[in-house]
């Protein structure tokens, strides 16, 4: 085994190694490697001679990592997430408030619309009532005046009738007088003729 020399080389050798193998060299089994795996001849992870150094450097690097995480990185990510949650919560609140405002506006609009409708209906109905009342009043006025006219006309007709009837009497008397004068040539008293006319008119 000429392994020891090979293992003394740095890790970079490993790069060359695979290429060498590809170029025509033969690999070996794990068992062979373990025999001469390291200078001290043990399986590398169990080589206690490296433990102290590994522990020290782990303590340094992990300690520093822990410090950086707890003091710098985690507070930062935490604050980013917190800010985001706050912003989202605030935006949701704003949205809820805006929605409430919009709802209120819609309700107010509906209410005003209803009020306006009611007012419109009221105006329309009062107008209708007023028009109806006026129409009724007009009609009654017209009826009254027509009735008056009718009754006046009837009165005049009656008047004329009575006057005419009265005239009929006078005409009959005159005619009777004239007829009597022609027939008997004598004068007849007005009273006699009047009573005779009256008697015959009945």
């Amino acid at each position: 085994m000429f392994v020891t020399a090979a293992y003394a080389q740095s890790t970079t050798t490993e790069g060359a190694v695979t290429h060498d193998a590809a170029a025509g060299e033969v690999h070996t089994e794990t068992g062979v490697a373990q025999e001469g795996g390291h200078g001290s001849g043990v399986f590398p992870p169990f080589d206690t001679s490296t433990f102290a150094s590994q522990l020290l450097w782990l303590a340094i690097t992990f300690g520093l990592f822990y410090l950086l995480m707890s003091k710098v990185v985690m507070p930062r990510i935490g604050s980013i997430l917190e800010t985001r949650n706050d912003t989202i919560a605030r935006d949701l609140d704003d949205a809820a408030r805006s929605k409430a405002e919009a709802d209120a506006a819609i309700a107010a609009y509906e209410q005003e619309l209803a009020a306006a409708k009611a007012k419109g209906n009221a105006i329309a109905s009062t107008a209708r009532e007023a028009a109806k009342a006026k129409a009724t009043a007009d009609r009654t006025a017209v009826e009254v005046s027509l009735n008056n006219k009718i009754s006046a006309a009837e009165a005049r007709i009656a008047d004329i009738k009575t006057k005419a009837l009265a005239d009929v009497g006078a005409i009959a008397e005159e005619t009777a007088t004239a007829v009597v004068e022609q027939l008997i040539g004598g004068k007849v008293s007005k009273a006699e003729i009047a009573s005779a006319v009256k008697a015959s008119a009945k």
Partner: protein
Amino acid sequence: MAGDKVDPVHQFVVNKIIPIEIGGIDFSFTNASLFMVATLAVATAFLYFTTSTRSLVPGRMQSVSEISYQFIASMLREGAGSHGMKFFPMVFSLFMFILTANMLGMIPYFFTVTSQIVVTFALALFVIGTVLVYGFYKHGLGFLNVFVPSGVPGILLPLVIAIEVISFLSRPISLSVRLFANMLAGHITLKVFAGFVASLGTLGALGIGGAILPLIMTVALTGLEFLVSFLQAYVFAVLTCMYLNDAVHPGGH
């Protein structure tokens, strides 16, 4: 024997880059250290720069960061309740660190930090240690209720307590070995199948024809390994949440 270089275990070897030795102990900056630093840098840079605009409406990358954050937050809240949220930075760091380390490991020639048992075991001990320290600090000896499930008949109690103690002690082992073994096995499998492709490819026309099968395998396994990388980070985080629940609510089961 140069072929030994296509060794599936070679990728787990820790190499010194800058040798450092303090008090006789080797603290060298190795390739493992390099990729721990890379994990730290990549994860932090991603989370930092994707959220730098702080957009109210996130872009894709900012979403990824935010989703990771919320994912872990909800996982922890479900696992350990709102009292457990004080461990949020810990669980988030663990998840992001392991996830980034696993994902970086998927890049060819990159070292997989989480394929080292010592790393995963240290992370698991960190979790269990936190549970123990917080549990005893917060509840005193009442934390021991965690080993005494309610509604168990008196005769069975010693047996149940013994089982609970063993299961508690096995937690760091199962937590660390699960992550370590998954990453290790996945990378070895990938390497073996990819190695087949390379070696069969050298055997002429028939070999190239035969190499198609392991190639398909390699592609499929790569997809699977990405899934495993995420899943193991997720499992580690979920179990961390469950264990933390014991520390927060010791009598809660």
